[in-house]
């Protein structure tokens, strides 16, 4: 009989609405990161580096990019005879069919998948964090404590603790209380949304709470286990970990990669991050180009100026163009003499000659001030920005825009142009 000690369930179905136009057509875990990767590469690489070779990836929102990226798992060595990666979308049943209504509900709907591997432990991961973690060490910890549930947690600055789910523990790290986004936090240990469950405990809880609407790990399953007197421990993690759930944190995490010795170092031999490499050729830096303090992906051609930026693969930055403090994702083209300041430009975007992005004074977003609030210009994938226009700060552009969409050739700070379609 097949028997896997620990399998992983990777939650990758969320939209990530706070990433605005970046996730209009792709699930958050499939968003590009760091000039080469997609966000989901980090948990997937952690899995294989930790010896977890059976991973169920739960998808729901806009899964196309995610599905083609994962394929049969070759880039992560997750193409296995037994186990490997399996994409698990919601499915129809003879009686009633449901979308995944919550994190735990999604796992519940895949009980059969987990059952087929006879696991002793199940690792619950989320597909939108940037970090390197050895899950095997966490499992050792789980076993040593004879725990039913282990929650990875990291200390955060006390003043920020009210933004997180906070764990209160006793001297032995056993969790005694939870506080979800407390106004006056009593601890600074924040849950990272990474759980190891002993399989029997998880199964029992999932079945018990199966009718809970929007069944969620943080809100329902963990409190249920706690009230049931289960042994729940906090596993303290002190390495680099970043939730890239907002445009601000996404931009920041990318920018941290270009520090001279980055806190999150991709250049170490140990603990490689794997991804599906879509391009092999080297990048070309032309005689008139200027490149300073940046990272640049494969096959990109730079004829202009790039500083403090993260440039993906297959990008072309034409002569005279200037890119500063920006993220340019794969296959985008910045035409001649365009100036791009503090922008996130998604995949396959064309920015017309002489266009200027990120100019002018700050103004709050008229589109969604909660999402667009970091002075950033955000351009969704497959968009086109016509030549010569000016785009202010805190703006969002998505779709094929034309000169007529820009009154006086301008999009003021805080403005937006979001068109349906795009040239997909």
């Amino acid at each position, binding site marked *: 009989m097949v028997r896997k000690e620990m399998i992983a369930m990777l939650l990758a179905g969320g939209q990530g609405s706070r990433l605005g136009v970046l996730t209009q057509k792709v699930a958050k875990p499939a968003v590009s990161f*760091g*000039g*080469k990767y997609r966000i989901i590469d980090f948990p997937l690489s952690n899995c294989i580096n930790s010896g977890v070779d059976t991973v169920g990836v739960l998808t729901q929102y806009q899964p196309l990019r995610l599905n083609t990226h994962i394929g049969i798992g*070759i*880039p992560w060595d997750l193409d296995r005879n037994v186990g490997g990666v399996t994409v698990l979308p919601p499915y129809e049943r003879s009686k009633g069919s449901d979308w995944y209504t919550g994190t735990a509900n999604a796992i519940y709907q895949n009980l059969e998948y987990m059952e087929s591997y006879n696991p002793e432990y199940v690792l619950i991961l989320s597909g939108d964090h940037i970090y390197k973690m050895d899950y095997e060490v966490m499992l050792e910890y789980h076993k040593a404590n004879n725990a039913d549930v282990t929650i990875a947690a990291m200390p955060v600055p006390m003043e920020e603790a009210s933004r997180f789910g906070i764990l209160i523990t006793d001297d032995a790290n056993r969790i005694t209380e939870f506080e979800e986004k407390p106004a006056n936090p009593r601890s600074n240990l924040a849950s990272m949304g990474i759980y190891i469950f002993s399989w029997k405990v998880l199964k029992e809880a999932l079945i018990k709470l199966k009718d809970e609407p929007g069944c969620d790990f943080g809100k329902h399953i963990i409190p249920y286990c706690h009230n049931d007197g289960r042994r729940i421990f906090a596993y303290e993690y002190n390495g680099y970990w970043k939730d890239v759930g907002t445009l601000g944190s996404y931009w920041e995490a990318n920018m941290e990669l*270009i520090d*001279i*010795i980055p806190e999150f170092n*991709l*250049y170490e031999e140990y603990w*490689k*991050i*794997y*991804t599906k*490499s879509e391009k*092999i*050729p*080297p*990048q*070309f*830096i*032309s*005689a008139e*180009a*200027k*490149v*300073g*303090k*940046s*990272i*640049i*992906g*494969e*096959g990109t051609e730079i004829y202009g100026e790039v500083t403090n930026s*993260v*440039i993906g*693969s297959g990008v072309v930055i034409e002569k005279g163009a200037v890119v500063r403090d920006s993220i340019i994702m794969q296959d985008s083209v910045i035409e001649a003499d365009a100036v791009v300041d503090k922008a996130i430009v998604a995949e396959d975007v064309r920015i017309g000659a002489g266009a200027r992005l990120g100019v002018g004074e700050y103004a709050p977003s008229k589109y969604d001030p909660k999402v667009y609030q970091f002075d950033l210009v955000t351009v969704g994938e497959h968009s086109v920005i016509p030549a010569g226009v000016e785009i202010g700060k805190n703006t969002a552009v998505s779709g094929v825009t034309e000169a007529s969409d820009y009154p006086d050739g301008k999009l003021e700070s805080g403005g937006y142009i979001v068109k349906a379609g795009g040239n997909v």
Partner: protein
Amino acid sequence: MRAIGIVLAGGNSKRMRELSRKRAIAAMPIAGSFRSVDFALSNMSNSHIQSVAVLTQYNSRSLNEHLSSSKWWDFGRKQGGMYVFTPTITAEHSDWYRGTADALYQNLDFLKRSHEPYVVLASGDGIYKLDYNKVLEYHIEKKADITVVCKDMPADVDVTRFGMVKTNADGRITEFEEKPMVNDSTTISCGIYVIRRRQLIELIERCANEDRYDFVQDILVRYKNLKRIYAYKLDTYWSNIASVEAYYQTNMDFLKPEVRSYFFKEYPDIYSKIDDLPPAKYNPGAVVKNSLVSSGCILNGSVENSVLFKKVYIGNNCVIKNSIIMNDVYIGDNTVIENCIVESRDTIRANTTYIGQPDDVKIVIEKNERYTL
């Protein structure tokens, strides 16, 4: 496709000087991210050849490492596949491959057990793109016994290290001379052949019976009047890297926009083994001009008219000019390198200088200890 592929990748050349000390020519790194053999293999894959044998002998470890999986070229299939054949001792013989024809003879079973009617033979040291189907069509149209892919070289190129051919108006090869003393033709053989499988088996067996071992001398040259041998003219980029000068020049060719666009942007792609290295990193102090930079590189100094292969580290205040820096080289601070080929896995100390001449490139092999953080 109706052909199987065979890549002849066993060779060495004195013209490679120190560069072939640790690797076969077919394993030479090319254009930052590739190996020479990737071009023949990708062409075969892109021509829909499903079954490919790579014959290796000289320093075969280097090549075997690169060929550790067939999936990079899409050969990992139930139908067909990629096979790497190194010389082996059998009940019948215990020789090395004594020549190209002998290499084929020792692997005759592969030819006999295949069912495809044709064979594409290619060397592993050519840099080109070619749809072998076009050569096969030509081969059938001309009712040829053997078709040799040929290239007209510019008049000023010394062709004496190649096989020189002369053809009649129909394209049939009338003269074939290997490494001629005097070059009175500018048409050369690219070392790529199409031949009917049964015809090849017959020729190879006859060769073996006569104790002849070389495909070019003992088949092409010897049979040129007896068999219908045709030249298929290649009019796109082709380069053979089997000398230090040619190797250097071929890499530098990739700094030209038309060459880059032809190989990197135009369909179909050239494939290679994936290394999962992070994007190249430019730190303050990096000044890069007209250069190719591969993934995993970290740059702190200045680089001009050069090709950096994967995972190269350039220290502060370095000046690298007109040079090729191969994989995994560490260059300490304040070092000057001009007109050099720096061997892979080298560690170059800080404050050192290596200067070659434009017409006499220096090969740098430095195995110092490396201290990394």
